[in-house]
């Protein structure tokens, strides 16, 4: 059979057939619509959630951070001489960590030494956590200086008596709004406020609380100031060292080298804890996967259900159309042509159903995301998946009725009443 405009003709015929039987066509397309809507809607909702989560991570300075923290090594009994002799995590570890071969993947390092201290200004007197910070702590944690200036390298190197306040801390200790240049007393150390951080604000859903409120409470000073003048610690011990490694694969290598370096620095005692990079890698890849699978599954179930309905409707409608098929065969349509005509109809139905499913899916995910207050994210890939699944199932379920129609004997089909 030559195909001079044959596909076009079949498509037209399929369209006429569908248009002439709106009720039947709608029922047949319903399964496709629901399946597509379910897959698309599900994917879009989970995409929206994931994007929102990624926004959170972006606000805290990225998810590509490797943390090193000290841990207790003595859980019971008295510490051994070795335990006592160990210094724990300290600035030296951070500096050396930046020198291992794989450290070229590191693009920022931050250190923090916290202390609890009485903080006093001329307006307020409160017990507060004081963050002794160093290196790239400010950008790494997503802080921006709004007023005054941030810490200079010189401030960090000398442990200068200067402080930068979070917006909440600034409004508590300096309610008048005049902040930069004012004196503050942290423990017994007088410092000068040199800047204020921009207020950090992030809500998962509209109307929920600001999950970064605590970050606005920060009272930041150079870590050396805390170590030297508040704790009297000549080794500059730290609460946490953070390396930013944008490439997660490189982070895994770096993590191994860092671990052995710090272990040897600590006389082979593992008195520190490293983030589990492998687990993070896995989590990064599988984020939202469960939801995608669930939604895809429910979509597939809808498509299968719809497909079965389709088979039944097609078989029932085949009875009405047997004669027509017989006529076509009599005037020379080979079985293949009848098969193709039925398949074209199914395909057209699937595509129309998918288009309608898109609208339903978008509306569905819009309503859901709106109701939980998350911006709607529509990924092109979701459309591709939804269409692909619909076409695959539409095709599979169309095969049987189409084959049955095409295998009729033309003579019997013609005589069918």
């Amino acid at each position, binding site marked *: 059979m030559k195909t001079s405009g044959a596909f076009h003709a079949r498509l037209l015929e399929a369209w006429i057939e569908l248009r002439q039987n709106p009720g039947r066509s709608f029922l047949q397309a319903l399964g496709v619509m629901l399946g597509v809507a379910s897959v698309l809607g599900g994917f879009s909702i989970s995409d929206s959630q994931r994007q929102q989560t990624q926004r959170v991570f972006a606000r805290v300075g990225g998810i590509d951070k490797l943390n090193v923290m000290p841990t207790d090594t003595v859980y019971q009994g008295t510490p051994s001489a070795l335990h006592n002799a160990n210094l724990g995590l300290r600035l030296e570890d951070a500096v050396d960590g930046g020198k291992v071969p794989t450290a070229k993947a590191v693009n920022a390092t931050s250190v923090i030494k916290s202390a609890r201290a009485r903080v006093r200004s001329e307006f307020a007197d409160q017990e507060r956590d004081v963050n002794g910070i160093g290196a790239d702590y400010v950008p790494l944690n997503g802080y921006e200086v709004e007023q005054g200036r941030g810490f200079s390298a010189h401030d960090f190197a000398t442990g200068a008596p200067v402080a930068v306040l979070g917006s909440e801390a600034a409004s508590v200790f300096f309610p008048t709004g005049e902040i930069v240049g004012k004196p503050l007393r942290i423990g017994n150390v007088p410092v000068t406020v040199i800047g204020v951080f921009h207020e950090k604000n992030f809500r998962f859903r509209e109307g929920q609380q600001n999950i970064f409120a605590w970050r606005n409470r920060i009272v930041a000073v150079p870590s050396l100031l805390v170590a030297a003048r508040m704790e009297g610690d000549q080794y500059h011990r730290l609460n946490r060292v953070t390396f930013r490694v944008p490439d997660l694969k490189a982070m895994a290598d770096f993590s191994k080298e860092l671990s052995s370096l710090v272990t040897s620095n600590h006389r082979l005692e593992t008195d520190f804890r490293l983030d589990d990079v492998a687990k993070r890698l896995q989590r990064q890849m599988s984020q939202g996967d469960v939801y995608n699978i669930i939604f895809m599954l429910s979509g597939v179930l809808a498509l299968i259900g719809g497909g079965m309905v389709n088979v039944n409707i097609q078989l029932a409608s085949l009875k009405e159309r047997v004669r027509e098929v017989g006529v076509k065969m009599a005037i*020379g349509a080979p079985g293949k*042509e009848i098969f193709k005509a039925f398949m074209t109809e199914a395909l057209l139905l699937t595509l129309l159903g998918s288009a309608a499913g898109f609208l339903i899916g978008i509306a569905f995910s819009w309503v859901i995301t709106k109701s939980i207050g998350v911006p709607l994210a529509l990924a092109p890939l979701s459309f591709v998946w939804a269409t692909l699944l619909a076409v695959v199932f539409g095709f599979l379920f169309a095969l049987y009725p189409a084959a049955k129609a095409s295998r009729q004997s033309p003579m019997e089909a*013609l005589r069918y009443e």
Partner: protein
Amino acid sequence: MNIIETRGLTKVYGSNGNAVHALRGIDLVVGRGEYVALIGPSGSGKSTLMSILGCLDVPSGGTYALDGRQVEKLSGADLAAIRNEKIGFVFQQYNLLPRATILRNVELPMLYAGVPRKERRQRALDLLERVGIPDKANVLPGALSGGQRQRVAIARALANRPALLLADEPTGALDSKTGQEVLALFRELHAQGNTVLLVTHDPAIAATAERRVELHDGLVLRDQMEKAA
């Protein structure tokens, strides 16, 4: 060359125990340009013979050459191609596709034959003119009278310039006046050189053909040549 040439054509339905012998050995030769009426009461095997001559069915035994081509052993797809190329069917119930326009109905056999779009359209329009309904190309079959529908069916049958025009009780659903008009059209087509095989149970209609082949119990009972009245 002969259009139809059968030798010992048999058809058996069912198997051993309750086999029905619909055809018991038909020898029939129809030359090009003949106008033959196939008559016989119901149960005589004329429908079966028509199905086989129309390549809708295959014989159980014997040989059948259509326009010089042996067709008794062909597969379904090949038979479809033969039907498309060599045979034009006209049925009692017209059998037009109800949801396609007249033009599309007439174009359909040409579509299966792979005739290019433009030519298809032109030929269909020419054919509609030839059968006397040039102005109904874009209506649906439902809007036409029985006689007009049968004319469309004839136009469709002629679409691929078939070797054989096979009409199965073409006037059976028409009133006698319209029936006469349709028969006149067949005679006209015959006069233009078409080979026509008319299947009917009505001797009056059969009388319009130049040759009458009468079947009885699966055999040719009579084969008469006679100038049409």
